[in-house]
């Protein structure tokens, strides 16, 4: 990100970058595996490692097996999918807008999802994620398209600044509408309060299956678009001179962000800071090459979401804290620490 604005790397920097880039990969993979294991093994209910092993081989007591496979299993898979989606969506939107403070919400994804969820809750009497997930997806898609149309109106191409401003403006307007809907009656307020917290708890696998196709298509588009983002980072003129179809790439990125962030938000509610934070960590390890930033974002996103979820299960025992709240109060200090490291920002 912003590679064109940094000083040319010295040869020694390049060597160190390669070491970090390749050496970081196994570390991140191991961290991801460890977090998956911890997500299965740790929770409000203490289950011994022996019982966890017994659950794997099918000899654990039914109660413990239920907790491990029916409660922790689905939420672990959901953390993996949502973390990867939000991490990559964040990386894409920061590259698209050339703004290190951008996150997927800047395109109106969260506001769009919340708007239609609020409409469903208030006017259709919906109460649970299983009922309003499709509205969340539709809202994310529709509002992102609206932001895109406003951001590109009359120009024939996407202007990152206009797109950002359009996203912020539309989100602000929608937030007012959402607040009005929330305040229309107590039940709506309570349901939207739960939605806004963002959680992976009590999510059955059908929630994941319903958004997985969106995430898969979004991820494929993102993977295809990432190499071209390197050229766009150097400026539109340079990218065009290198033969990159800038407009097509930007549309592809908007589509990918919408599918990834919209699908993730529909499944869990808004998880703030993940999309903002993950690309910064990824760039520390990967450097400015967007192909590597994509890969690292794909892996680091789930690590952060899993860590936040496990933390949320443990700190308020016997109760739990929704993962969206944990990402907020842990994410902000971590982000501050990151941006104080020049290396994280400069790259």
């Amino acid at each position, binding site marked *: 990100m912003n590679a064109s604005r940094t000083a040319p790397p010295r040869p020694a920097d390049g060597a160190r970058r390669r070491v970090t880039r390749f050496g970081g990969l196994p570390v991140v993979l191991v961290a991801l595996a460890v977090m998956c294991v911890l997500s299965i093994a740790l929770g*409000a209910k203490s289950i011994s490692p022996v019982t966890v092993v017994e659950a794997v081989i099918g000899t654990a007591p039914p109660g413990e097996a239920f907790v491990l496979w029916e409660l922790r299993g689905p939420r672990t898979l959901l953390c993996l999918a949502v973390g990867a989606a939000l991490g990559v969506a964040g990386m894409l939107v920061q590259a698209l807008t050339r703004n290190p403070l951008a996150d997927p919400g800047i395109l109106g994804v969260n506001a769009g999802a919340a708007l239609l969820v609020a409409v469903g809750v208030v006017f259709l009497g919906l109460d649970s994620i299983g009922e309003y997930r499709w509205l969340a997806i539709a809202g994310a898609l529709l509002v992102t398209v609206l932001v895109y149309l406003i951001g590109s109106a009359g120009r024939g191409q996407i202007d990152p600044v206009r797109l950002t401003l359009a996203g912020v403006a539309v989100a602000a307007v929608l937030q007012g509408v959402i607040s009005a809907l929330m305040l229309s009656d107590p039940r709506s307020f309570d349901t939207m309060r*739960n939605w806004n917290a963002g959680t992976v708890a009590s999510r059955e696998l059908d929630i994941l299956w319903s958004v997985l196709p969106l995430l898969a298509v979004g991820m494929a588009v993102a993977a295809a678009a990432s190499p071209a983002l390197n050229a766009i980072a150097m400026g539109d003129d340079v990218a065009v001179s290198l033969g990159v179809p800038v407009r097509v790439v930007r549309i592809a990125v908007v589509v990918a962000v919408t599918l990834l962030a919209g699908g993730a938000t529909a499944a869990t509610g808004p998880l703030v800071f993940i999309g903002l934070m993950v690309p910064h960590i990824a760039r520390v390890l990967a450097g400015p090459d967007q192909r590597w930033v994509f890969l690292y974002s794909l892996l680091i996103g789930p690590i952060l979401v899993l860590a936040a979820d496990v933390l949320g299960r443990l700190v308020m025992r016997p109760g739990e804290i929704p993962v969206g709240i944990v990402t907020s109060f842990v994410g902000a200090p971590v982000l501050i620490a990151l941006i104080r490291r020049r290396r994280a920002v400069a790259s």
Partner: protein
Amino acid sequence: MRAAASCPHPAVRRTPSTRPRRKVVCDVANRANRIIAAAVGVTLLAGVAACGGSSGEESSGADGFSASVDGAYGAVEVHARPERVVALSLQVAEILVELGIQPVAIASSQDEINEFYPWLDGVFTGDLDPELTPNYVADPEAIGSYEPDLVVGNTWTVAEDVYAQLDGFVPTFPGLAEANDDWDAVAVALGELTGTDGQGLVDSVAAECAAAQERLPDLVGGTYQYVAAEEGQYRFGNGSWLECFGLVPADNQDNTQSTDAAVSEELLDQLDADVLAVFDRIGARADIEADPRFEELPSATSGAVLWLDAPVANATNSPGPLSHDYFIAELLPELESAAAEQG
């Protein structure tokens, strides 16, 4: 019997009912509108006071009635027997009706009663006027239009600033405390303010509970838990209403409605009281019952799991005498079956 009345703040009161969420809404209500409405209302109320003040004093002299109780914000005094009472919550409204006083206006609507308070359908002869508490905050202008001689509410509809505006012109009872009021304490206080038999009303409800307990000989003395199903956890609500059936709180039952009083869904086996009441607003019943640990719970084995819908949850959350009638009628048959099972 110390069933709690409606709560002033979500931080204090996290309850399974839909009712306390009104307070959350109160907190974010548009203050500017309140101030404007209050200014107009104070003017109107001043007119009411100017017109009715002398006659009020005369009637005070005439019937010799005078009463004072300690309200949440200070002493509430009346110097004539109240005849035009405005009720700012359904709970106080039903207490007033059972004390023999029909409020001239009640802050509610027929739709709200139909959906959440069906036992109150047809109980009131006064106006049902939701504009008395727009955004769940008392509106002095709307209240003044009824020319009341007593306003009865609670601290989450009558915040202290609104109370200060109202009380200068019309006696205003804002509840007994800024935390949860016990309905029976409110009934006694309202009895004093209106010259009616509040304690007698409380005793009559206690007698109904005693009658219910007589039909549950094997359950009396058993433990209870009351939770609201949320995503990923069960949050404790104030279950003191279950004491009407002779039950006692389980060791981990938290009636304080603290925001962190909850049990993770992973710890379902900790909901092991003899009677388990669940307010299932999010439709989690099927998932809960699918947990193999559920059928091992003592309450599940004896059939003493009470699944509360919104009306029953409201009846237990903001109880009054008629609410007691309702939830006793709704839940006693299930409890009798459970008691027979345990016996």
